[in-house]
């Protein structure tokens, strides 16, 4: 018995790692992504090999990726944040106004302010959910409307135009370092940080514990309220970042900014293998999912599929992903049970 207890540690970490990676969802999605890119490139080589094609391939996801990451952090705790689209719109407009009202504000400051604003909006969600103990789905549905309303009222019939913003900021939209666009670098840095924290920090692991059984987490003495609050703040801050990025990339903000993108963010997370009822899934997966979503949308017209079909394809993708999950998890459950039979 006692040596049985030790068996798992006998399997060399390398072995185990290798095993998990190969079976991992992230790899599967990444494979699909690569396939899409290959096919499209065969159809029109410039999709990948023209400087623009390459740039857009990397640049276009720079808004959805941060959203998907934030969404994952929240979903993992068995919550969801529908308000990110409105937060994005609001912070995008805020960014423009900052440049209008405080010319000469350093760009970094704008990024910081944008993320802070997002964090505050996220905190509102977090407080309501964590302290009010009310379903996140409903709360964030409410704030979705509220934030959007504030945005509309604030903007009125003004819009932000490129001419309102400094060259330096607009150039960010296309600037690259070694052919890698700056905006996506930002997104990837965020990804790396959040991913690392979720994977190895105690706080991160506790998010998973909370998501997989809130009551037990409470009895464990995990700081459930604080963690959930944090998750929403992170999601908000990343939506804020996405807002600033949006402005930098498109150089314009109209009342439609970010409308309906929250569902795409959820979709990306799901495609990336994040379980909608919490407890499992990685931000890596979500980010790849976001990449896939965006890239498919760009690829379809090129391979000559009518634009109308794009939505349908996105939907199909989501459903395939979750059905696949289902199949895999059933399988895995069986495997785990079999593992015990040895005892």
């Amino acid at each position, binding site marked *: 018995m006692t040596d049985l207890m*030790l068996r798992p540690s006998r399997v060399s970490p390398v072995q185990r790692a290798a095993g998990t990676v190969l079976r991992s969802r992230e790899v599967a999605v990444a494979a699909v992504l690569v396939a899409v890119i290959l096919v499209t490139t065969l159809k029109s080589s410039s999709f990948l090999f023209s400087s623009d094609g390459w740039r857009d391939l990397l640049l276009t996801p720079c808004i959805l990726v941060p959203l998907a990451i934030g969404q994952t952090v929240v979903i993992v705790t068995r919550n969801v944040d529908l308000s990110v689209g409105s937060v994005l719109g609001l912070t995008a407009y805020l960014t423009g106004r900052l440049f209008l009202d405080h010319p000469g504000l350093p760009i970094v400051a704008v990024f910081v302010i944008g993320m802070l604003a997002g964090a505050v909006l996220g905190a509102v969600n977090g407080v309501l959910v964590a302290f009010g103990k009310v379903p996140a789905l409903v709360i964030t549905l409410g704030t979705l409307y509220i934030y959007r309303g504030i945005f509309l009222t604030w903007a009125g019939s003004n819009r932000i135009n490129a001419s309102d913003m400094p060259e330096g900021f607009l150039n960010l939209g296309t600037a690259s370092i070694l052919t890698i666009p700056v905006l996506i670098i930002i997104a990837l840095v965020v990804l790396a940080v959040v991913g690392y924290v979720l994977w190895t920090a*105690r706080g991160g692991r506790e998010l998973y514990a909370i998501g997989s059984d809130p*009551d*037990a987490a*409470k*009895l464990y003495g995990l700081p459930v309220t604080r963690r959930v609050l944090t998750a929403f703040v992170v999601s908000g801050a990343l939506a804020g970042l996405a807002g600033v990025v949006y402005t930098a990339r498109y150089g314009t903000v109209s009342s439609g900014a970010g409308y309906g993108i929250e569902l795409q963010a959820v979709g990306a997370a799901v495609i990336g293998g994040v379980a909608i009822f919490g407890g499992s899934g990685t931000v890596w997966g979500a980010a790849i999912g976001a990449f896939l979503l965006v890239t498919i949308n760009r690829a379809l017209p090129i391979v000559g599929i009518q634009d109308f079909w794009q939505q349908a394809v996105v939907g199909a993708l989501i459903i395939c992903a979750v059905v696949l999950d289902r199949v895999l998890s059933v399988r895995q459950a069986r495997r785990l049970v079999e*593992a*015990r039979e040895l005892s």
Partner: protein
Amino acid sequence: MSGPANGGAALELRDVAKSFGSVVALKSGSLEVHPGSIHALVGENGAGKSTLVKIVAGVHRRDGGVFRLHGKDVDFGSTAESKHAGVAVIYQEPTLFPDLSVTENIFMGRQPLGRMRRIDRAAMYAEAESLFTRLGVSIDPRRPALGLSIADQQIIEIAKAISLDASLLIMDEPTAALSGVEVERLFAVARSLRDEGRALVFISHRFDEVFALCDTVTVMRDGAYISTDKIAETTVPEIVSRMVGREVAELFPKTPATIGEVVLEVEGLRRAGVFHDVSFTVRAGEIVGLAGLVGAGRSEIARAVFGVDRYDAGRVRLGGKQVAAHNPRAAIRAGMAFVPEDRRRQGLVTEGSVARNVAGVIRRGLSHAGLLTSAAENRAAGPWAGRLEVKTNALDAKAATMSGGNQQKVVIAKWLATQPRLLIIDEPTRGIDVGTKAEVHRLLSELAGQGMAIVMISSELPEVLGMADRVLVVCEGRITADLDRADATPEAVMHAATHAGGQASHGDEAPDDHDDHHDHDGATTTEVTA
């Protein structure tokens, strides 16, 4: 007609097998139950009892073997089919619909219908009330199931089952949550059902109950049939040795420990409507038993002390230092551990791995610079899980797939891993087999020996009397007696648990229940007292 032997069997299972994946839960389960008989089914945790039950109930489909009901071969694909065939089952875990009234819980799917197939609610409530009267419990048939203690839930389950007036009634550890009076009433009902000529199967880990109620007993071990005897012709040691396959050590090896300084001090703890001016102390190396009837408020007191539930007044001190109210983390940091009573809901992160579950609480200890590796988790978890013989080889197996007993062991292991100064353990051996039971008891007194202070809530009187240095009796949310091991006799405890203070407490309980109602909801009182 209470003679079991003669007449065709109501239920006949022969060499029934069931595997999950490649886990053989049931190798060759055999069971023959006759009309007008109460048949006990006993076996260790993981012996396959519940699995057998679930096959009869149609939850699982058997892989092989004979399954006859009243002589006819049957093969249920769903619980609906078995229900239709006259099989009523009380599952090991209560399965209620919290949002629906207890009445709807009882009659769901077969509500009495009036004109145009519309549900006749009046008839339904009336029937529910008569059921409750029969079980001698007082539950408003219109209240939602939400907020019932496990005991209450278990009673609803029983009402549900008997209301089916089935020809075969299977009860999987129905008494696990019950104590004293409830059990007696249940037995009365069971006997009357038997005398009506129905067949009953009774699963329990409590032999006193088995011998008090049943006429026949079937023993299972490792998913296989071992033996069937008339109760009259067998003895506890016999059965136990068959169950375990070895001689079991004495059940309550309480080794007197040296009592040290006061560890836990509870002063004037009060929660409106649940418990009132509760004060007691626990010393190092001392095992304090909390005895009392179901719903007396023991769990609630424990949960409040640990900080899971809020309390309106009072103080909790650990080692002289005040412990923040309603804050389990503070309690854990102060050195408390709490093994909850409802392991299924509160004990485990069931999706998580065993190791993750065991290591859960001690992350703080495990994590270096806030970082945490599953290797570390396994290191910490291994020994404890091993100590308790958790039947799992892979610490990264999912806790959810373990049998009831094994889950309990994981929870205990989890908390022991925090090396607490005070261990609060609620129903430590509920649903645990004799072998492990002895192991748990040995463990407890060993821990006490090492100077740990232990509060043990138990509805099993023998357990309390056997283990506790001191017995606190709780009645209607008040501590009505504080008995030393010496003068803690069954009579004394039961007396304190039932009458003593009962009347008195009712008198002065009324007022603070009333102003309590005024506090938050005037309208509510109409439901109860208007």
